[in-house]
């Protein structure tokens, strides 16, 4: 019971792991490029949770600062990625990444 009531480091890490895996799953399996982007956001969020957790339980400010930068970069990433997705859509008339495989040749 102690394990469930005393909210500690491991609880946060568990949530972060689940979030990360779900994000990874989206990136790996979904065909829609936008859902993939959402998956990436989930991964970033999971990372952020980890940063903050360790920051809190270590007493340092590094994690907080890093999570801040992560959020900033996520914003940048989302902007650029969406621009690319829209470009892909204009070129291929689809956002289905499985049909965008010109790299193969």
């Amino acid at each position, binding site marked *: 019971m102690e394990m469930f009531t005393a909210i500690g480091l491991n609880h*946060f*890490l568990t949530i972060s792991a689940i979030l990360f895996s779900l994000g990874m799953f989206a990136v790996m399996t979904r*065909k829609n490029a*936008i*859902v993939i982007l959402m998956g990436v956001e989930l991964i970033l969020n999971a990372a952020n949770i980890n940063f903050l957790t360790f920051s809190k339980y270590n007493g340092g400010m590094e994690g907080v*600062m890093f999570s801040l930068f992560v*959020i*900033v970069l996520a*914003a940048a990433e989302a902007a650029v990625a*969406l621009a690319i997705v829209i470009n892909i859509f204009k070129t291929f008339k689809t956002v289905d990444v499985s049909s965008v495989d010109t790299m193969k040749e």
Partner: protein
Amino acid sequence: MNQLTLSIIFYVFAALTVVSAAFVVFSKNVIYSAFALMFTFFGVAALYVFLSADFIAVTQVVVYVGGILVLLLFGVMFTNTIMQTDLKTDVLHVVPGTILLLLMIAGILYTFYTTGDWMPGEAQLQGSVVQRIGFETMSRYMLPFEMASIVLLVALIGAAFLARYDKVHNKDH
């Protein structure tokens, strides 16, 4: 607030985060995914509060929900014609993907629980850290901060260029 209440609130938000994240991932409808993602972001923001990072939580809400999510929604709108009701997306390799997902969770958690001498340090963060963030930003993290701003600028210009180039490109043809 006693420990138990805190725990319950934590679990509520944790469940909100995880469930809505799962919904994001498993939903076939992109619009639903996008909205579920909003809940996830909120849930995560709440967890940030638990972690004594209220400034980050606020930033999370502002940037993610206000910015990124809106962007994503725009993306959904752009890439799916409104008339096209079928916003569902296919999922590739569900079974291996799910197996991989479970394996991943199991692997990470196992690592956490077995490796962890995650003993809490003596000095835990307490209370608001907004002031300290401001202090750190302007001193120790000056350079990364500037660089982040430049990256943001470049990303903005790049995004604008990508979208614009596309138009020019299209005109050519």
